[in-house]
């Protein structure tokens, strides 16, 4: 396991980044023309309600002090009230977040299931016709917008063949494996194209490397060489890649949740934008930033655990 010191230093690195993230989000509402309190309130808010919002945001104070209020409110979980939902933003987001987390993990699992075997297959036949065909296919996958992949899957697998529901959300964990299959697959087809491309490249490199050649020369069976040496190395790059592609994944959920009527935070973001619900937009943007940076952090930790050499760096 990584040392406590490493974890601490990595955690501390997040602090300045996050302060800057907060500055961006803080400025967001202040860039709107007019009074930020009005932007953050319901259309028919009374003067008293506006005064409460001013108080909470400290709008009469200098900008730096306002930022202090913003950080304090955010850290204590007070993200304001959603105009659309008429409830605290934090509450609304927490209600929808599990859906998106489920969908993302499902998509990650599917991308690995699709990409790993194909990458291995292609890498062991590098530059052969099978390799070229697989790479070509994924190049096409990379050129397709996620919403379009979703539409095709929905029409063909959902509406025509009736293999999966055409949208919505299930009632239980197991039920959702079925309900969210198409949205997860839509995201997975895109991310697996990226994963497969990079995984193949790193596998080719490992297969060419001296220690694999050496292991082969020693007469170790091909299967053992593959599992012990090659896959372990490939795993490191796969984890890194998946961790770094969390942004892609989140962008993907935003689109597919809309196409498939999945009630997660991605669809909520679009609903908030069309309703001009600025407190909710702000809260959601922050939520996405938290998800991404936590994933980056987790990736670093897992990576250094899998590959101890990195810890010295």
């Amino acid at each position, binding site marked *: 396991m990584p040392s406590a010191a490493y974890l601490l230093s990595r955690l501390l690195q997040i602090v300045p*980044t996050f302060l800057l993230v907060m500055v961006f989000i803080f400025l967001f509402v202040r860039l*709107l023309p007019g009074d930020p309190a009005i932007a953050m309130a319901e259309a028919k808010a009374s003067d008293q309600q506006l005064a409460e919002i001013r108080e909470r945001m400290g709008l009469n104070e200098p900008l730096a002090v306002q930022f202090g209020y913003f950080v304090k409110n955010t850290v204590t979980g007070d993200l304001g009230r959603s105009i659309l939902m008429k409830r605290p933003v934090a509450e609304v987001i927490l209600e929808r977040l599990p859906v998106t987390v489920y969908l993302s993990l499902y998509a990650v699992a599917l991308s690995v299931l699709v990409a790993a075997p194909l990458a291995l297959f292609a890498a062991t036949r590098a530059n052969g016709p099978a390799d070229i065909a697989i790479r070509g296919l994924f190049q096409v996958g990379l050129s397709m*917008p*996620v*919403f379009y992949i979703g*539409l095709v899957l929905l029409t063909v697998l959902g509406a025509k063949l009736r293999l999966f529901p055409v949208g919505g959300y299930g009632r239980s964990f197991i039920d959702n494996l079925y309900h969210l299959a198409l949205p997860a697959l839509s995201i997975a087809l895109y991310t697996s194209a990226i994963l497969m491309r990079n995984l193949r490249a790193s596998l080719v490199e490992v297969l060419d490397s001296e220690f694999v050649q050496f292991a082969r020369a020693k007469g170790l069976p091909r299967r053992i060489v593959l599992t012990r040496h090659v896959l372990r190395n490939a795993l490191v790059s796969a984890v890194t890649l998946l961790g*770094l592609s969390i942004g892609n994944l989140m*962008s993907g959920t*935003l689109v597919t949740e809309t196409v498939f009527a999945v009630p997660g935070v991605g669809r909520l973001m679009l609903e908030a934008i069309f309703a001009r619900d600025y407190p909710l937009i702000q809260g959601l943007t922050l939520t996405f930033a938290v998800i991404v940076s936590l994933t980056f952090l987790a990736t670093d930790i897992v990576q250094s655990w899998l590959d101890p050499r990195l810890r010295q760096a």
Partner: protein
Amino acid sequence: MTTLDRIAPARPNRLSGFAARALKRPAFLAGFAILGASLLLALFPAAIAPYDPLAFDMTAIQQGPSLAHPFGTDGFGRDVLSRVIWAYRVDMQMAFFATVFAMLIGLTTGALVGFYGGIADAIFGRVVDAVITFPFLVLVIAIVAVLGPGLVNMYVAITAVNWVYYARLTRAEIMAQKAQDYAAAARVLGYSDARIIFRHLLPNAISPVIVYWMTDMALAILLGSSLGYLGLGAQPPAAEWGVLIAEGRNFIMTAWWISLMPGIAIVVTGLGFSLLGDSLADLLRPKGR
């Protein structure tokens, strides 16, 4: 559409024999042909499209592909082929305008922070960390939410985020070039900083940026059409592929051609950019690797 899909920085190479080597690569030729054709369609849609893309024809509603309408017609009898062709103009513009300013700003900023380093570089590092902490699409649509939907606002939103990626790439290249002998020689000769940066370092650092730009234009089309589909990008009745797909969404079971054809256009154009980008990357990469 993030950090991942970036191409490994390649070193510059002499142009001699470039064309000859390029012409031997089928990927390069295919990409070049696709983009050439796309550019023609984008520049002269009026001459090429068989019908007016906006004119309703109530006598030809939702007709399947035929000789008169090779891609069929939509719910108002508009010719889908003509709409897809006119959309080349919008989408190719998107590919260009959503990326070119980001590239120019990124090149300049990246070159400056890479050359001078110090506090500016440290701040820049934090900005990069903060920007990549937002999913690209989320940040872009949040900015569109403030500015309002529309093409120009979309360019502004994408540029506001995207320049960071160019700057990061340029900075890394400039740092590498700065360590080279010729840069030290230029200093000894007493050239001004501006001259060293823009006449010596940048030309040597630019080719990976150009390669990345190619890929990025494909990504811009994906992003722009997604925003169009979601109602945050180009606005109807303008023909844009994402908007066309959204329009055909309702008829996907009965008149599939309305949404299928613009989708194919996206894939083919995107493929053109990636093929060209990938083969440029290979061609510009130093030999012996």
